[in-house]
């Protein structure tokens, strides 16, 4: 019996460049006009720009409208539980660091149900990219407030307005020195694609929070609302400057900055594990002598 063996990510690449066709075109279950379409497009562009073949990439998602996104392109895909994409992605990456692991989910998924995993993933600096479709609302369950909803946002579940303060994912990520923190907007697809490309290329935890209008349930933070406010960070914004990044991270309201807000280079979580230096855990055998040696300690 022959078992497949994995070509290292850098080797065995086919000669021709990857194209958008490699990632296919599928029918979606989204509402017409939803920002998700642009986001999907940007992700595909970024993958192509990264020259990654579909089988080299593993998407991991949770549950929500956002989390369906990887169903609509060609790639390996583990569509797990609501809120749990980050731990599943972390496990997969540790098992096989040769995979490009991208977690893609909604604001509810990542910052609500999955809040604890979000801060833990930052602290690990695990080398995965997290793309958050941040529509500031729970879409799939029909429009309740999400952690990023504005304080006072009214919904059927919050008829007197959302009583909590808004969660600022960028602020927290920068405050925690996450190694790559960026914001995009679905209304600027090329810019977004380029950010995602950089995030994928980045070694370490990369967050791309994407402002994504939900045309059905968020009548406050609409396409026009974002469009009016969003601006690209000036060239002289230095993402290595934490103080400046913190300031930028808390800019929200009349003006919303887009782009790479903070970035630092530091060891990844994988670097802590000697066993990962020699490659993937998958398929690696432990010699019986090693096992016998371990067992000896019970003599």
């Amino acid at each position, binding site marked *: 019996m022959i078992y497949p063996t994995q070509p290292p990510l850098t080797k065995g690449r086919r000669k021709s460049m990857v194209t958008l066709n490699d990632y296919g075109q599928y029918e979606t279950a989204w509402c017409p006009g939803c920002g998700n379409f642009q986001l999907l497009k940007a992700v595909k562009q970024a993958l192509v720009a990264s020259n990654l073949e579909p089988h080299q990439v593993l998407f991991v998602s949770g549950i929500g409208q956002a989390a369906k996104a990887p169903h609509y392109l060609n790639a390996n895909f583990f569509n797990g539980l609501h809120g749990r994409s980050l731990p599943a992605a972390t496990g997969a990456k540790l098992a096989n660091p040769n995979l490009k692991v991208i977690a893609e989910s909604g604001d509810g998924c990542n910052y609500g149900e999955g809040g604890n995993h979000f801060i833990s993933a930052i602290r690990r600096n695990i080398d995965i990219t997290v793309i958050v479709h941040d529509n500031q609302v729970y879409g799939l369950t029909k429009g309740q407030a999400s952690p990023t909803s504005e304080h006072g946002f009214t919904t059927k579940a919050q008829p007197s307005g959302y009583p909590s303060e808004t969660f600022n994912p960028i602020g927290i990520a920068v405050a925690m020195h996450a190694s790559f923190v960026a914001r995009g907007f679905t209304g600027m697809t090329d810019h977004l694609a380029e950010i995602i490309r950089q995030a994928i290329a980045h070694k370490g935890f990369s967050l791309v929070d994407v402002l994504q209008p939900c045309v059905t349930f968020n009548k406050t933070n609409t396409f026009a609302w974002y469009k009016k406010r969003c601006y690209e960070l000036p060239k002289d914004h230095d993402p290595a400057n934490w103080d400046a990044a913190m300031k930028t991270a808390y800019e929200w309201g009349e003006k919303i900055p887009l782009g790479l807000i903070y970035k630092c280079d530091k060891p990844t979580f994988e670097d802590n*594990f000697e066993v990962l230096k020699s490659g993937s855990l998958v398929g690696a055998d432990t010699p019986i002598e090693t096992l016998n040696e371990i067992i000896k300690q019970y003599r």
Partner: protein
Amino acid sequence: MNRERTINIVIGGEAGQGLVTVGGLLSKALVRSGYSICVNQSYQSRIRGGHNTFEIRTGTDEITAPQEKIDLLVALTNETIDIHAGLLGTGSLTVVDAAQNASCKTCFHVPYKELANARSMNIAALGVVSCLLGLDEELIAGIVNESFGKKHPETAEENRAALTKSYEWTKANNSRFEKLPQAPKREGRLMMNGNDAVALGALAAGVKFYAFYPMTPSTSIGLNLASWAKKAGLVVEQAEDEIAAINMAIGASFAGAPAMVATSGGGFALMVEAVSLSGMTETPIVIVMGQRPAPATGLPTRTEQSDLEFVLHSGHGEFPRAVYAPGTVEECFWLTHRAFHTAEKFQGPVFVMTDQFLADTFRAVAPFDLSKYPAVRAGAPLDDIKTPYMRHRFTESGVSPRLLPGFTKHLVVTDSDEHTEDGHITEDLSVRKLMVEKRLKKMKGMMKETVAPELAGVKKADLLFVSWGSTKGSVVDAAAALKAKGQNVSTLHFSQVWPLVPEQFVSALEGAKRVVCVEGNASGQFARLIRRETGFEIKEHVRRYDGLPITPEYIIRNIPPPL
């Protein structure tokens, strides 16, 4: 329970007094000397203080269960004497510090102060006991040196002196306590507890990813694995919570690393959503459930078997699972190993249920022949792959050959939503029906591999004990004691509690005059399960739920009067 064959030693004192150290060293010495042991550790949920015991039952023959009656009590505090007074017999000895001013009929006053300084008091106690048992002094000294020599070379000499002095003093002063009979030569035996064996079983099976959140009594499985991680090439990660632990493990398993988690009741409660995820995505995962008394936080450091029904029905919806319940330390090893193979073969959650008693009980076990326990190979060989590749392809057996992402150009896709054969989300309700049937079909294959319950004794006994999991040894021992008294007793022990295959055991149940189910819970969960699956109602029970393990004596005391 024959004084000539076994001696039950209890070392009692406060947490922090080092009684676990003494107990561990003594256990190792006994095993190396060729004796069998059964250790029962009793401790409180605190780090210092409280009253703890380390109990070693030892002898020349195989020992399967703890014992209540105490032959040799090593009392590090006077409290120990008071607590255990009722369990001492006339031939028993209580080793006490002469300075403690304890007075009791069985007291053997040791002038520790004269034999050792404060730091090596423990070692002195070890010397005393070793001598009383008739163990070889050099052997003990060697063991002490192995365990302290490297870490604390400065105390090596001190320890050695304390050991010799106390050993010699005891030799000179003991006239009462009869030492152990000579043990047979037994080469290469190992001393380990249930958790060690679980960890080793996983290692043999090729575990590559282990995630956990600390929880008694499962924690030491992770500590073992962590200590071998570099050498054996695996990743061990302490997660932010149990939810993360199991989702990480499932992610790792999906990517191709044989993966395991271990926890206890409350932690497992947080994992049950992911148990269902494993069932739906058909991702192998081994889950070790170290039971302890519940509900809620319960008694964190005690034992119980009250999570059977919880595990059997954990996770929403319907999907196959296998549940092993080792009865011995050896079974902890090979059933954990087997759990990995079952998980990989049937692609879903597989459980190993232990409890605090089994997790912490040290035993002497024969060395494992690892060539008989091959590692799991994750994923299917290329020969099994049909194109177009579909992760959840319908098959005869319900099992779809799984590929690992990134290893071929085939895309591996799965979904926690109901999905089509290619793993993508669907709302097609006819596919839904077929997928439910596909998943449940795997149960048939699992049933072909169910570990049959072990019937010991005649088929038509007057009394049949039914048991599962960690109580095995006590049930066997109780049966032996009753048989010795002329009763016609058999035992039927389940080391796999799901799926059950009634043909394997119903005739044994029906053949016995009386059937008594022995289990460590208050509502008779296993008896209920038997009835549900076979219609056979077990009407008599021995149950325990005070946090202590079921002992042979407890069983005999609690057999209901004949109906």
